[in-house]
C-alpha cells in the first residue's frame, strides 16, 4: 500500500516535471536540448519568406563589421537593430529571444572575467584583492574593456541568431551550395540535418523508457543508463543508415542528392534598407573612432 502510494506520488512528480519542461521554453536562462526550439522559431518566423541569401549575407556582413570595427557604439546599434528585426519584424516573443541570447552567458562571464582580472605577486593596479598566494587586480580601463567586449560579443551573437532564428537550416545549406561549397559537404550537411532529428526522436524514446524504469535514480545508475542508451543509439543509427541507403537506391539514387529549394523573391526595399544599415554602421564606426 505504502509502496504504491509512493509510486503514485512519484508519478505525479514526474508528470509535474514534464509539465515544467513544457512550460520551460520561455524562461530566461541557460538550457539545452534547445536545438529543435531554434529550428522551430526559424520555421515560425515571419522573416522566413525573406530571401535566405540576403539574410545570410546581411547578418554575416553585420557580424564582420561588429567584430572588425570593434566599437561599442556599433555594437549597441547592432544589438538594437537585430532585436528589432527578430522580435518586432520576425514576431518572436521577447522572452524567447532573450533566452536564446542567454545560452552562451556562462562562457561570456567566465571568459570576460579571465580577460579583465589579472594576478601578480605585487599589489598593483587600481583595485586589488589579496588571495593568499598573490593579488588579483584590475583597473577602470580593464573594466571598461570588459564591458565593451561583452557588448561586442552580444552584438555578434545577435547578428548571428537573427539569421538562425529566421532561416531554417535547409535554406542556409542552400545558400552554402550557391556559394560553391563542395558538393560532398553539402550532401552530408543535408543528410546530417535530417538525421539529427531522427536520432533525437529515438533518443527521447529511449530516455523516457529508461526514466520510467528508474534508470536515472542515482549517479552510478545514470552513468550506466547513459552509456547503454548512447551505445544503443549508435547501433540503431547504423541500422537506419543502411535502411536509408536502400531507400535512396530504390528511388533512383546514383550518386547525386538533389533537394527541392523554393526560390524566394528579393524585393528592392530589403536590399536598400540592408545596404543603408551597413553603411550606417560603417559611418558610425568611423565617426566615433
Amino acid at each position, binding site marked *: 500500500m505504502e509502496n504504491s502510494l509512493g509510486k503514485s506520488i512519484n508519478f505525479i512528480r514526474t508528470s509535474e516535471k514534464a509539465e515544467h519542461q513544457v512550460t520551460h521554453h520561455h524562461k530566461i536562462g541557460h538550457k539545452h536540448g534547445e536545438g529543435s526550439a531554434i529550428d522551430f522559431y526559424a520555421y515560425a518566423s515571419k522573416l522566413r519568406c525573406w530571401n535566405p541569401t540576403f539574410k545570410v549575407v546581411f547578418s554575416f556582413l553585420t557580424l564582420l563589421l561588429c567584430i572588425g570595427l570593434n566599437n561599442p557604439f556599433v555594437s549597441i546599434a547592432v544589438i538594437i537593430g537585430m532585436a528589432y528585426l527578430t522580435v518586432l519584424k520576425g514576431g518572436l516573443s521577447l522572452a524567447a529571444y532573450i533566452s536564446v541570447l542567454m545560452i552562451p552567458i556562462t562562457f561570456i562571464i567566465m571568459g570576460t572575467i*579571465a580577460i579583465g582580472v*589579472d594576478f601578480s605577486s605585487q599589489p598593483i593596479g587600481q583595485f586589488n584583492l589579496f588571495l593568499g598566494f598573490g593579488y588579483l587586480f584590475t583597473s577602470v580601463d580593464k573594466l571598461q574593456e570588459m564591458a565593451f567586449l561583452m557588448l561586442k560579443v552580444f552584438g555578434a551573437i545577435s547578428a548571428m541568431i537573427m539569421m538562425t532564428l529566421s532561416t531554417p537550416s535547409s535554406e542556409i545549406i542552400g545558400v552554402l551550395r550557391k556559394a560553391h561549397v563542395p558538393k560532398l559537404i553539402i550532401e552530408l550537411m543535408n543528410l*546530417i540535418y535530417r538525421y539529427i532529428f531522427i536520432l*533525437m526522436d529515438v533518443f527521447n524514446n529511449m530516455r523516457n523508457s529508461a526514466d520510467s524504469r528508474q534508470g536515472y535514480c542515482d549517479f552510478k545508475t545514470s552513468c550506466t543508463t547513459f552509456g547503454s542508451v548512447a551505445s544503443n543509439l549508435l547501433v540503431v543509427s547504423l541500422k537506419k*543508415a543502411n535502411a536509408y541507403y536502400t531507400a535512396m537506391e530504390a528511388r533512383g539514387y546514383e550518386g547525386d542528392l538533389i533537394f527541392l529549394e523554393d526560390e524566394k523573391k528579393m524585393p528592392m526595399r530589403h536590399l536598400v534598407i540592408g545596404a543603408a544599415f551597413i553603411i550606417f554602421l560603417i559611418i558610425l564606426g568611423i565617426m566615433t573612432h
Partner: protein
Amino acid sequence: MNTSLNIREKRFIAVVAAIALVFGFTPVANAMHIMEGYLPVGFCIAWGVICIPFLIAGYMSMKKTLKENPKTITLLAMAGAYVFVLSSLKIPSVTGSCSHMTGTGLGAILFGPAPISILGLIVLVFQSTLLAHGGVTTLGANTFSMAVAGPFAAYGIYKLGLKLKINKHVVVFLAAALGDFFTYLITSFQLALAYPSEAGGVAASSIKFLAVFAPTQIPLAIIEGILTVVIIIGLETYAQPELNDLGYLTGGVR
C-alpha cells in the same frame, strides 16, 4: 579597501571568492566553444587557415572511401548526426548541473581522425545554428580545438595504448578524457593568444583561462572518459557486426 581589512577578513573573502568561483559557475559546464565575436578578425582567419590542411586531408580520405564504397554516404552522415546528438545530450553529473560530452573522443575512436575533421566541422556549424553554441567567425578556432586537435590526440593515445598492450578500457578512458582535456588546453591557449595578459603576456593569460575553466572542464573530462568506456563496453557486447561495418570508415575499433 586594502587598509580597511585585516588579514583574517581578507582570507575570508578569498575563501568565499574561491567557493563562489567553483560552485557559482559549475552548474553550466559545456564543451568549450569559443563564442561568436570573441576573437579579433585576424585570429578568426588565422585559425581557419591552420585548419585547412586537416580539412583537405579529411575531405580526400572521405572522397576515396566513398569512391570505393558509395554506401558509406549514409553511414558517414549518421556518424555526424550521432556526434551531434551525443554532444547535445545532458550527461549525468554529481551536482545536478547540466553538462555535455564533446563526443569527439568517441568519434575519433569509432570513425578515425580523418573523417572526424569534416564531420566535426559540420557538427560545429549545426551547433552554432541549432544550439547557439559557438559561432561562424570562431568556426576556425573551434574546428581546430574540437575537430582536429582533440580527436587527433584521442586517436593517437588510443593507438599508442593498444600498441603498448594496456587494458583496452583503460586506453579508451585515457583517450577520451585526455582528448577532452587537450581540447580544453588548446581553447585556453587560443583565448590567451587573442587576449594576452598585460603583466605576463600569453603564458600568464593561458594560466588565467585554464584556471577559470578548470572547475568545469576537468570533472567533465573525467566523466566523458567514464561514459566513453561504458559506451564502448555496450557496443562490444551488443554490436560487434556494426563495429566491423565501421571498419570501412577507418579501421577504428575492429
